[in-house]
């Protein structure tokens, strides 16, 4: 807001300098400002109030809306101001309208550029905020399962706690840079080891990842949340359990990760949306349009496919 005031006033000053006879530019500036300042204040207030609908309009539409609004406001103030401010009638509405349009467009462009310049920082903050969050359901159920093991199978209980510690170490680490696929798989296996305590032989996993080297780079925590989804929506609701299949394959310049699990419900997997949206957004922040993610339910099988650029970590 303050920036907008400063920017517009700089323009006013510049016009005053251009218009005024030598030595007279201070009064010219004041005349200009008397005309511009109320219009500026009113327009800022209205735009501020309308920021939500404007935001919802999308990029181009909001630009057009703001510019039209400014011209309309200028027309209004032009007619009010003509009678009140001496010397204001020196300009025609066409001139005022054009200047308004010009100044508004410049101001908008300035803010646009500025937000773009700040974008990487915003993106990074968003990656951090989007870091996969583990389901509380998993945490409490796992603790409960370990408590159930402590007396009868203390060794297994120990292993489970060690796996949990490793898993949470990764979840709470700084996960902004790409990570080797091998590490993602190891993490997913630890997660599955914890889940299999609760689910026993209901949880079966088929890994088909041999075709891709372990040092292929993927966004961190891209696999584990998907497998967690598969367990929650595919395995737990089935009395006999089922198989989760994880596949990694290279396809040209892309790495394709595919995960399938049985899914008895209808096409809408409600609880899924959060995790899927989270991963989709992280993929976009890492790779922009070069990555994509699809999910579908077909014949009782839920399939999610992720395509990312094929990258290897440099030794």
């Amino acid at each position, binding site marked *: 807001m303050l920036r907008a005031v400063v920017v517009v006033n700089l323009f006013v000053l510049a016009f005053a300098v251009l218009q005024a006879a030598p030595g007279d530019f201070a009064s010219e500036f004041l005349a200009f400002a008397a005309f511009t300042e109320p219009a500026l204040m009113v327009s800022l207030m209205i735009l501020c109030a309308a920021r939500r609908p404007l935001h919802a309009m999308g990029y181009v539409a909001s630009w057009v809306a703001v510019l039209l609004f400014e011209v309309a406001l200028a027309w209004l103030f032009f007619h009010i101001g003509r009678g009140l401010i001496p010397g204001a009638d020196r300009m025609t509405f066409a001139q005022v309208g054009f200047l308004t349009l010009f100044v508004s467009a410049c101001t908008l462009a300035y803010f646009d550029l500025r937000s773009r310049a700040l974008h990487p920082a915003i993106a990074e903050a968003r990656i951090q905020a989007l870091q996969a969050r583990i389901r509380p*359901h998993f945490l*409490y*159920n796992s603790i*409960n399962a370990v*408590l159930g093991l402590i007396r009868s199978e203390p060794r297994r209980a120990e292993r489970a706690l060690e796996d949990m510690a490793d898993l949470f170490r990764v979840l709470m680490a700084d996960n902004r840079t790409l990570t080797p696929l091998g590490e993602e798989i190891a993490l997913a296996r630890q997660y599955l080891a914890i889940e299999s305590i609760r689910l*026993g032989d209901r949880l079966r996993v088929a890994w088909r990842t041999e075709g891709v080297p372990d040092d292929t780079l993927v966004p961190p925590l891209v696999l584990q949340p998907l497998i967690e989804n598969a367990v929650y929506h595919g395995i737990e609701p089935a009395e006999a359990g089922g198989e989760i299949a994880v596949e990694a394959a290279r396809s040209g310049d892309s790495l394709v990760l595919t995960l399938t699990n049985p899914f008895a419900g209808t096409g809408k997997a409600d609880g899924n949306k959060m995790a899927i949206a989270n991963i989709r957004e992280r993929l976009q922040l890492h790779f922009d349009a070069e990555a994509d993610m699809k999910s579908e339910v077909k014949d009782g099988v839920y399939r999610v496919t992720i395509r990312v650029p094929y990258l290897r970590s440099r030794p």
Partner: protein
Amino acid sequence: MTLAQSEVPRILIADDEGPARQRLRDLLDEIRESFPMAIVDEARTGREALDVVNREKVDVVLLDIRMPEMDGMETARHLAGMAQPPAIIFTTAFDSYAIKAFEVNAIDYLLKPIRRERLLTALGKTRAAPPVSREALAAAANMPRRHLSVHERGKIHLVPLADILYLRAELKYVTVRTAEREYLVEESLTKLEEEFAEAFVRIHRNCLVARAAIAGFEKNAEESESGWAVVIRATHEKLPVSRRQQAVVKQFR
């Protein structure tokens, strides 16, 4: 079994996860001193729990909410229809929806991992408190049941929703019609309509028909004020459509 043992509360553990059942067993063993009880059996699904209840006398069910095939909510609703229902103590690790619903409807539950003291308190309460009402359970449920339960001679008989052709209200009961036979259930047709809005459609003040059971429509039907009747698949019965519900005919044709 001695006489004294037969009089202690009989507990059923229902949870699909082995370690969770083991944990409850450990805890119950520990509090046996201060709360004498017998563990009747363990169940891995809601359906198994109902089987146990049909087979043996059960006073208290420790009932996990999230179980495969039939979840704890539905199981509890079938149990609550019994003439002498067992007390139900829900257990859950994390289910924000269920917990909120339990709080609103004053239904007792235990959070996993369960503490010994909390379990003891909950068990203690079951001796005095009346069992949870069907209405409270229905209000707390967020999903339609997958079965209706018929209670005959103290046994729970489940009628899968998919088998039901139509539901017809008569005086105090609702007749449940399947291809094979009819059952009587003590439910309100209006509540059933709300719960199963997706699968059933109202064709008359006293009748809900399964959408999947509609074979066709017949015009100029006798005893039908609108002139239309629904023809039911499998039984070929013709059910009158009231003038008020006539729009149904258009919707399906």
